[in-house]
Each structure stands twice: as structure tokens, then as C-alpha cells.
């Protein structure tokens, strides 16, 4: 009996594992087709540094504002401050810093998006369930 239960558990785990890795594979781009971000990045890299910085900042601001319109209760306190500082850095011509900061803004927006997704699926985990 114990062996049977062990076998069934093992088979279930293997099945779930296969499903999980299958879904991971589904998100991977097909071999040979470059992801669009990479081609965009390559194109952006050919631009002068000042233009790259400007574009990166504009893009980051757009992503932040799009997110803010839909999920204002998930915004972080300091992201707008970071954007303001990045704008200043752009005016001062500190283009490397602008690129770094724009990337940080993008990262924060991704993390906020992650919190939205987490909330949708997992909020009940923190609740005392009847």
C-alpha cells in the first residue's frame, strides 16, 4: 500500500514537473528568431549616447505612466523622485547616469507589475482563512 502511494506521488510530481517545465518552454522565443527588444537595443546602440539616454528615459517614463494609470495603488514612493533626478541628469549631460537610472525605473516598474500579479493570485495567502 505504502509503495503504491509512493509511486502515485512520484508520478504526480513528475507529471507536474513536466507541465511546469513545459510552460517555461512556452515562454521561450522560438530558436533563430531574435527577441524584438534585442533588435531595438542594437538599433539604439548605434545612436549617439545623448540620444540613447533621452530615448531610454522617455521609454521608462512612458512605462511608468502607463502603469500608474492602471494601478495607482501599487506605485512606489520614490520612483517619481528618481524620474525627476534622471531628468536633471539628462539636462546636465550625465548620459551614463541617465541610462543607469532609466534602467532602474524600468526595473521598478517591472517589480510593481510583479506585485500586481502576485496580488491577483496570492493575496489570500496572507489572510486568516475560515
Amino acid at each position, binding site marked *: *500500500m505504502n509503495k503504491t502511494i509512493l509511486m502515485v506521488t512520484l508520478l504526480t510530481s513528475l507529471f507536474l514537473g513536466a507541465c511546469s517545465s513545459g510552460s517555461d518552454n512556452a515562454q521561450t522565443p522560438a530558436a533563430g528568431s531574435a527577441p524584438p527588444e534585442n533588435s531595438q537595443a542594437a538599433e539604439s546602440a548605434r545612436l549617439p549616447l545623448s540620444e540613447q539616454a533621452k530615448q531610454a528615459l522617455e521609454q521608462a517614463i512612458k512605462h511608468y505612466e502607463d502603469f500608474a494609470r492602471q494601478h495607482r495603488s501599487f506605485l512606489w514612493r520614490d520612483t517619481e523622485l528618481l524620474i525627476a533626478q534622471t531628468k536633471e541628469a539628462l539636462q546636465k549631460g550625465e548620459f551614463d547616469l541617465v541610462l543607469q537610472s532609466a534602467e532602474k525605473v524600468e526595473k521598478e516598474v517591472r517589480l510593481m507589475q510583479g*506585485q500586481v500579479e502576485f496580488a491577483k493570485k496570492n*493575496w489570500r495567502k496572507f489572510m486568516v482563512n475560515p
Partner: protein
Amino acid sequence: MIRLLTFVSLLLLGTVSAWAQTTDTTPAEDREALRKFFQSKFPDIPLDAYKDGAYIFDPKARAQFEEIEEFPPWEFDVEEGEELFNTPFKNGKTYADCFENGGIGIAQKYPLWDEKRQEVVTLPYAINLCREANGEQPLPYEKSDLLKVQAYMAYTSRGKRIEAPEPTGKALEAYKKGREYYYSKRGQLDMTCANCHLQHAASRLRYELPGPLLGQTTHWPVYRSKWEELGDIQRRYKECNKQVRAKDLPYQAEEYRNLQYYMHLMDVGLEFNGPSSRK
């Protein structure tokens, strides 16, 4: 045969587990579960004591609180609030004309679901709606006479039990939104309200003891020593948001009103003892 039975049992277990995750609970069930949680965590604390928040966990702080309440710092606000409450608007009407029972002894019913407006209405929000309906300018939600009027109305409800009908339809949706807000992670610190006020109630966060979720809506508006003035629960929401490095929302934002509605429904049956004082 045994294998088949085992397989079917596991399948059933999975189905029941999936069903349990998708089936939603009612406010009454949530309330019951929350009370059981606190009663099993702190078996020596009676349910009614939760109206005093974190002071139930700290005898020294409680002693200070009781001393403060002998000559409460909100007393003058209540007196001024009564005067403001009875002062007629330009059209001759008063606040009493806007509320059930002339606005006396009704604070324990707020926030409530307003069927006409199809939204949650908190007491400060209702006070401003009353002003607007009578051709007056709404008052700011912080540092204004509005809090004094609210304090007076709260004072007339002291000793009454928090009450609310079980929500249905859109009211239930608002409750669920508020509940989801409470248990969602936000801010750079990636924290939910529940992290402090449920999981770590009675634990020290630096020097402070976070108040338990149960009883968090019973005593507003509050004179906080830190603020050196009266403030409403939404001022505390804004502070909490900032403390976890999230961006706070405007006063009386729909999200905050729904959150307050959820918390109010968890406190149904507890004694209302606002206004009160806190550190």
C-alpha cells in the same frame, strides 16, 4: 483495486483543494476566522478589549493611555465640534439635517455602503457631502474643522457597538476590493497590511507594537501624540503606505474607502470608543 482507490482519492483531494481556493468566503466567515485567529493567538485577551488596539499588549503603555484618557487631549476638539455641528449653514440648515437621527449616535455605522451613490461613504466623506449638498465648500480632510465635527459625532456614539449589514451585490464587491488591498504586497518593502497587523501584531517593530487588525476602526478620529492633533484613519493609511515606501493615495480615494469598509466589517459587534488618543 487499491491503486485505483488511491488514484481516485488523490484526484478528489486535488479537486477539493482547487475548489476551496476558488470559492470565496463571506464577510461573516472572514470575521469569524479572524476572531478565532486572535483568540487562539492571545487566549487571555477578551474580544471586547481589542477596541484599545496595541495597548492590550503593553501594560505600561496602557497605563499611560488610561492616564491620558482621564484628561483627554481631544476634549476641546469635541466641544468645538459640537458648536460647529450646530452652527447653521448659509441656507439655514445644519449637519443634523443630513444624517439619520440628526447625526447623533450614528458614527458606529460608518463607513457604510450608500445605495444611491453606489460607493462606500466614510463619516468625513459624508460630512463633506452634507456641506456640498447645502452649498458649502468641502473642508480639507486633514488639519481642519471637519475633524472636530467628526470627533463630536464620534463622541455621541461612544459605547455603541460597531454595526453594518452584511453586504451584497456591489457592496460585497467593494468589501472584496478592500480585503484584497489589505492582503496585497506593495511598496519597495514589499509588505502587506497583514504583515504588521496580523502576522506581527504584538511583536516589536523597532520600538513600536503594531495594533491588531481586529479593533482598528473602533476609535477614530484619534489624537496622536506624534501628530499633536486629531487625525482620521486614512491619515494612518497614508503613513503606512509611506512607511513601506509605497506612494500614498489622496484622502477618501476609492481604494482607501473600500479598505476601511473591509476593516469596519471585521469589527462589527465591537464597542465604538472614538475619539481616542494614541502615541
